């Protein structure tokens, strides 16, 4: 229970209508089954939830938490367990009322947004101005600010529009002390166009591969790099997702490319990066597409022993979808020709889906706005991913096999739904500056056996990452962080120092930023524990020598 005095201060700060401690209402923030790797479905019930409407109100809330010994954690859309509180002394700052697009600077190609602007809204506004915005793989539901400052942020369009963390320009940040810090040019009153300097960049402590997941103050505004959009101001589309009948803009085409073998597919991704073509590129196996758009067919295929799915996956080895966008007919023609040459040289077939009416109509908006991917929930009820770190495409490809090895054991034992194979989600950043891969697995969170697989599988992910010499994105989880940090320059010791310097009262909910936890060793296979010890012995301290 939140103390009366503290509650009254919150009410005074932002108005009684914007604060709640009603248990059922708080529970609507605690139901967090998605990406809840603990196997639980509810996270802690927060002490209160507040709805500030401005940076000043956020500051007031943060100061009230400091005065009253409460913890705080901000969320934007709050999708996934990372959006919840980790203790009942945490005040959740729901940033829903801060939902303005402050500015879209058409000439200098950036937008300044508040936390509750979603990707779909921003993209719709950008298109009207001849610009486009990166949308994260989670879909247009997600907050671009959260992706840029606090979470991960990769997406299908990363080949041409990078990843959220690298699209950050100026930032407005309410520190755990309640003070406002503006990173880069806005800190000097020079506009929002740059996030670094003067001198050392404070983006250095804002986030890395991932952010602090709300464990380090509150981000209230961010300027995001936008990109050129060669398409029309709106793309007309009837229907919603699976019944979409939109048209793909004339300046675009998209292809499903499949190969004789997996190495050919990876080679093609490398060459596409070198050739500097492509607007969207994502590698998903055939069974994933069936899963996405034909969930009714999927279980029938699985019931046949998965043989058909395996056949499809092998016959169409490591296919990927690529959407090309030309700023002129000449550029589109060039890109198409280069793509065909690349695919041919890699023993593949590029099927021009944009010439197939139904596919063109179905996939146009679904690709451009990334609307189709959240349908992955439809079959299993729930899914999760083994998060890799971001590295060279070859490494990402290897990850699919490593995780398949682990995952299939759970599938065989009934701990996960049989989804027909490795199911990677693999993308290429910035014309192959580097890549990202996750291995998707399906489960039903109403099934206790499935839930009990999650922690051990998370442990396996960590083991695989150590073997691969890579800090996985999953290092935001306290267990993974505890295992990884000593093997990676003690990064968490530095995070703790930074956190302490800026959060002297320890007001932030740091579970997903600096807290550490041991795995539940009783639930881990002894052979795997042995393997962990061996890896720790092999690698400890070696990265600094």
């Amino acid at each position, binding site marked *: 229970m939140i103390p009366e005095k503290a509650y009254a201060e919150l009410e005074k700060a932002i108005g009684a209508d914007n604060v709640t401690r009603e248990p059922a209402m708080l529970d609507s923030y605690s139901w967090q089954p998605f990406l809840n790797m603990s196997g639980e479905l509810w996270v802690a019930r927060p002490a209160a939830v507040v709805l500030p409407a401005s940076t000043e109100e956020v500051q007031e809330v943060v100061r009230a938490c400091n005065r009253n010994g409460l913890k705080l954690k901000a969320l934007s859309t709050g999708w996934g367990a990372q959006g919840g509180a980790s203790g009942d002394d945490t005040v959740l700052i729901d940033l829903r009322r801060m939902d303005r697009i402050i500015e879209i600077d058409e000439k200098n190609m950036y937008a300044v947004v508040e936390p509750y602007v979603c990707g779909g809204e921003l993209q719709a506004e950008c298109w009207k101005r001849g610009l486009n915005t990166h949308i994260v793989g989670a879909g247009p539901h997600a907050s671009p600010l959260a992706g840029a400052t606090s979470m991960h942020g990769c997406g299908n369009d990363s080949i041409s529009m990078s990843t959220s963390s690298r699209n950050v320009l100026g930032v407005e940040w309410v520190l755990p002390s309640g003070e406002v810090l503006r990173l880069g040019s806005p800190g000097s009153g020079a506009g929002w166009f740059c996030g670094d300097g*003067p001198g050392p960049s404070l983006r250095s402590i804002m986030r890395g591969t991932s952010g602090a997941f709300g464990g380090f103050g509150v981000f209230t505004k961010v300027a995001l790099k936008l990109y050129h959009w060669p398409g029309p101001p709106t793309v007309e589309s009837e229907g919603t997702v699976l019944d979409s009948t939109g048209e793909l803009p004339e300046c675009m085409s998209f292809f499903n490319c499949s190969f004789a073998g997996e190495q050919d597919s990876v080679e093609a991704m490398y060459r596409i990066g070198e050739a500097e073509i492509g607007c969207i590129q994502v590698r998903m196996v055939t069974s994933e597409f069936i899963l996405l758009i034909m969930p009714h067919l999927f279980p029938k295929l699985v019931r046949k022993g998965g043989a058909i799915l395996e056949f499809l996956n092998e016959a169409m080895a490591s296919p990927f979808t690529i959407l090309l966008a030309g700023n002129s007919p000449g550029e589109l023609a060039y890109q198409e020709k280069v793509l065909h040459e690349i695919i041919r040289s890699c023993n593949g077939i590029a099927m021009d889906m944009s010439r197939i009416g139904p596919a063109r109509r179905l996939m146009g908006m679904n690709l451009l706005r990334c609307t189709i991917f959240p349908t992955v929930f439809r079959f299993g009820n729930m899914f999760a991913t083994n998060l890799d770190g971001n590295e060279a495409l070859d490494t990402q490809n290897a990850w699919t096999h490593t995780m398949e090895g682990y995952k299939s054991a759970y599938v065989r034992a009934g701990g996960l739904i049989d989804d027909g194979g490795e199911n990677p989600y693999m993308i290429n950043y910035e014309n192959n500056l580097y890549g990202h891969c996750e291995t998707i697995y399906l489960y039903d969170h109403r099934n206790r056996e499935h839930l009990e697989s999650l922690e051990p599988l998370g442990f396996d992910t960590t083991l695989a990452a150590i073997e691969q010499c890579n800090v996985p994105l999953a290092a935001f989880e306290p267990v993974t962080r505890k295992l990884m940090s000593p093997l990676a320059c003690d990064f*968490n010791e530095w995070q703790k120092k930074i956190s302490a310097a800026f959060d002297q009262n320890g007001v932030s909910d740091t579970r997903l930023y600096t807290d550490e936890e041991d795995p539940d060793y009783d639930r881990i296979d002894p052979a795997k524990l042995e393997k962990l010890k061996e890896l720790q012995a092999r690698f400890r301290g070696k990265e600094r020598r």
Partner: protein
Amino acid sequence: MADRGGAFLNSLAGAVPGEAIISDAARLEEYAASRPPTASDPPALAVRPRSSEEVRSVVAAAAEAGVSLVPVSSGAPHVKGGSAPHSGDVVVDLSGMDRILHFDRRNRVAVIEPGVTFPALEEEAAREGLRPMTPLLPRPNKSVLASYLEREPITVPKYHWDMTDPLLCVEVVFGTSDVFRTGSAAGPGCLEDQWAAGNAQKNPMGPAATDLARLVQGAQGTMGIVTWASVRLELEPCLRRFGIATSDSTAPLLQFASQLARRKLGDELVLLDSTNASCILGENGPGESPGRFLLVYCVSGLPGYLPEEKVAYQERDIAVIAERAGLRPQYGDRAEELGAMLSHPCAGPNWKTRMKGASLDVFFLATAEPAPGLVDAMYEVAGRYGLGERDVGIYIQPVMQGRSFHVEFNIFFDPGDAGAAARVSDAAGEAAGLLAGKGAFFSRPYEPWVDVAYARCPDTVGALRKLKGIFDPGDIMSRGKLCFKGGETPGTR
């Protein structure tokens, strides 16, 4: 360092071979900033470590003794003052650490030590059909890492996705003497382990929620010493054509540059005034130019990817954009000559010395709209100090794929004329103050505008000092630079 010197020297002697310690006055003189107004005294000592381990030992010894270290990677002359020592400082000269530790053609990345220069990396890369990104005409002994760590803009904006580019992962020895590796180089395992696992040190962010490469970048050595880094390389085009668009004002050229950059059209994209173009071309000069400003751009094709067709569509698209902007770009010998020079390190000495022997550079970031007004404001201030248009060269570079511009004024002067140097310095200081109020963002603070830059962002200064207290609590790294003036760093109180 007089009172602490003995202990430090003893530690140093155990850390590096004797020949790595330089105390000869003549040799120390080379480390002083060489020309007014940032001219400095020589350091008390210089040390030339040959490995990361030796750097770590040197830093540990300095931390123990409270001696201030100034890392230097490029060869002399040192002009901007970023590596200028104060008397009593010890220079850590990294130019001898000049190995290319790893070269990965497939992933287009190299891991290099601080002493690797642009010509050296260019030569190695060319063997594999790759090229490093360069700032405008770096001098031949310029360290690649020093340039990238200083966020010097590269001339090909389409490869400048983020301000860190083309820098990827770094190994840094912080002022605490802790070694840290950033991005995907952080571990587990050493570089060899990571290579064996297929990694290529390509992810510049992390590990986890840190991005400390950004902390050491732009820090002028105040946080730590970088001992190696991975850097991004690009495919070397097999076909290049240069074009030049000219105008009497910067505005249409800036607009044109924005339009090209936003479509990732072209490679090199550099805006110069005729003064700077003359300096760069040397005796040949720009010849009769139809405008005072010129935008040089390159269209290229990549080997194996239909280069002729790529060049063809780019030229067509650029022609359309140019027509809309009322510009008539010209191709031909003059464009090719200037373009070819822009793509490589400077053949001779620093081009900025050609006009009068020295230049004081004032540079900042700005968006396209205020930039022309900032140019006018600079001329106005320069005029008040008796400096004409031929005394001030202009270089404007689109950065972040055209979201903003690096605007640089090169104020030429005779280094032998103390009065001229002082006048130039005063003009630069006054201009910085004026420009900062008109939309100029001094993201890379050097003298004489360090205070101007930091006066505008007290909150940033407060945060940076907290970080200085964490990563260099003894204030031994490049003491007194940036906003870390004596006694103002938490760790030193």
